[in-house]
């Protein structure tokens, strides 16, 4: 009896203590930041990692006291992430669902470019145009990287790397550091918007930097037989081979190249392929592949970010895609405080307008690799470096001047 009452007593004391401590830290207010993207399906890992990155950032912010609202009170950040399964209609539904909530002032997403384009398309094109019935809701993209999408609407903003800049830089570097390389052959995944668009950039930058573009091999996203394409590659015998494709077909092509003994002097890849997937599928064949990326754990900020996401779930990694989501949460927190957002249902539309203006007014944001510039059409100019696949891991090959 005595034992029991002692235990009960200590439980009560502990609970009271926790409650007190909790009250000191927990705010009675919550401010939500929404996200949407592909959380299931073949590209499900992207959405899952974005959500984890957003949560990691929110945890850090909340631990430091949360976000300050317009009236001086503190609120903790809450993340809610919707799954669009990389499908245009579901993406539109997800955005409409988010926009119809009375606590949504901004959303981070989507993952897929084929979702981003229709989603941006249903937004109001020009602010203040009362004849335009598009949705008035600000979106700050983390992953969808097909070129030029943010220009579709004045409510759409992106924090994705500029492929034009990165590939210009990488081919500059090739020209100066490897002047003996003269010829170029490309490989492109034609039916995926992002790879197709980026290949155009790669080809142009290669030509602009004095490489002779001897041609390209093409294949489709689902292709399984690359013998024709690699044979063309072999015949061309180019010094530099650039592959603009996602991990599945990149691995298929690399394996075929190994089979047919095609060994270009330099292999360049697509930004999105600088992730674990490529190394998991064909680490051995990808040896030496150089890719420009906007994230690598090369400084303290980046390293602590990588650690933070592992704390959420050890199977998740930080890569260039969800690093943008991580950065976005911190940026939004700053903007919310600067704009004195109230976060109340009755200030909803005003808050959204304020968020949009704040996003439009940004000239610079904080990135994990350094300061991120902004362009006139709502895109980002992110610092980048080049990584190379070495023994099953990505190591930094070169940090170019920017």
């Amino acid at each position: 009896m005595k034992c029991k009452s002692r235990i009960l007593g200590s439980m009560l004391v502990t609970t009271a203590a926790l409650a007190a401590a909790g009250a000191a830290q927990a705010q009675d207010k919550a401010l939500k930041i929404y996200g949407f993207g592909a959380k299931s399906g073949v590209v499900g890992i992207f959405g899952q990692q974005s959500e984890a990155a957003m949560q990691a950032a929110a945890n850090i912010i909340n631990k430091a006291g949360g976000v300050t609202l317009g009236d001086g009170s503190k609120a903790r950040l809450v993340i809610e992430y919707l799954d669009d399964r990389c499908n245009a209609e579901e993406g539109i539904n997800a955005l409409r669902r988010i926009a119809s909530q009375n606590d949504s002032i901004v959303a981070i997403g989507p993952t897929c470019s084929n979702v981003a384009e229709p989603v941006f398309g249903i937004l109001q094109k020009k602010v203040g145009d009362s004849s335009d019935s598009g949705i008035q809701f600000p979106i700050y993209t983390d992953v969808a990287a097909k070129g030029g999408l943010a220009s579709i609407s004045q409510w759409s903003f992106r924090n994705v790397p500029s492929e034009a800049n990165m590939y210009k830089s990488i081919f500059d570097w090739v020209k100066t550091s490897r002047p003996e390389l003269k010829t170029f052959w490309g490989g492109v995944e034609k039916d995926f918007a992002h790879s197709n668009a980026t290949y155009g950039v790669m080809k142009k930058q290669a030509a602009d930097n004095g490489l002779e573009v001897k041609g390209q091999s093409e294949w489709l996203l689902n292709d399984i037989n690359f013998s024709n394409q690699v044979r063309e590659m072999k015949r061309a015998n180019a010094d530099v081979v650039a592959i603009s494709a996602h991990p599945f077909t990149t691995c298929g092509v690399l394996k075929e190249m190994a089979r047919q003994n095609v060994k270009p002097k330099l292999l360049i890849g697509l930004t999105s392929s600088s992730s674990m997937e490529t190394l998991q599928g064909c680490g051995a064949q990808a040896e030496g592949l150089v890719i420009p990326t906007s994230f690598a754990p090369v400084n303290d900020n980046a390293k602590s970010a990588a650690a933070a996401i592992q704390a959420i779930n050890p199977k998740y990694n930080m890569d260039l895609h969800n690093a943008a989501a991580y950065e976005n949460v911190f940026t939004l927190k700053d903007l919310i405080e600067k704009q004195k957002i109230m976060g109340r249902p009755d200030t909803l539309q005003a808050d959204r307008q304020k968020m949009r203006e704040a996003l439009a007014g940004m000239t610079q944001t904080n990135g994990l690799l350094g300061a991120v510039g902004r362009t006139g059409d709502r895109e980002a100019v992110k610092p980048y470096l080049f990584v190379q696949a070495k023994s099953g891991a990505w190591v930094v090959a070169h940090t170019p001047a920017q």
Partner: protein
Amino acid sequence: MDLLDLIDLTQSVLDGVLFGATYSLIGIGFTLIFGVMHKINLAYAAASVGAAYLSLIVVSHVPVPVVYLVAALMGGVLGWLVYLICFRFLPLSNPLATLMSTVGMLLAIEELISHLTQGMPMNYPAMFQSANIEIGSFFIRGDLLFVFLIGCVAMVGLTQLLKRTRLGLATRAVAQQPVAAQLCGMGINSTNASTFVIAGLLGGTAGAMAGAAIGVLSPLLALPLTVKGLVVTVIGGLGSIPGAIVAGLIVGGAENLFQFIRGVSERDIYVMLLLFVFLVFRPGGLFSPPGGRD
């Protein structure tokens, strides 16, 4: 077209034909099930890819040929599961219901694979990867030749099974005259189940061979293999196994031929047109199956 192009063209077609062995295997599976039950099993290719994934569980513990064997066995198990879930309890007179239930199964398997592997492409072991035979300017991929041979062995094995064993007899009997077969004491359900298991064994092999030929497995494989398999089945003749074999090789070769001539963006248009040509001029397929059944 100069000599170099001609050599490339021949090489292309040769590669395609060897790769087509994988399509043949999938086509045989479809045609076998169709021939016996007169139903399409749209989940077949997905189950085959699933079997290959399951065989990855043992990949670091056993030599490569055993991995393929495990894939085949897993294929058989999955085949039986598909039969149980999608066919066993559905009325025979309603082919639409089984069509839909296999579609549901296809979606479920694809989704399960994506979920369990996080969508990451998985490295799949290949045999004879570096063994390439060079005949003059021609280059025959050793591993594709191996895939081709395994395919042939599987096909011969299947034909022997169908012709020489009691199970094969039962399968053919149920295919031709279900009621009479029942009167002779053959259990329809058990025979159908065994047909699915056999087709599944073949499918598991096909999945493993596709994985070996490409080098990586991905959930993206299921749908294109399904479509190619169906095309092969139709061109070969519904219910005809030799037809599926020949059609698979033809489709594989034609694919590469069209790709060589017209590039990858238009390749599939021509493959589909090839199908239409067959449908118009030879709707029964290459070989009408024996026994007077269509």
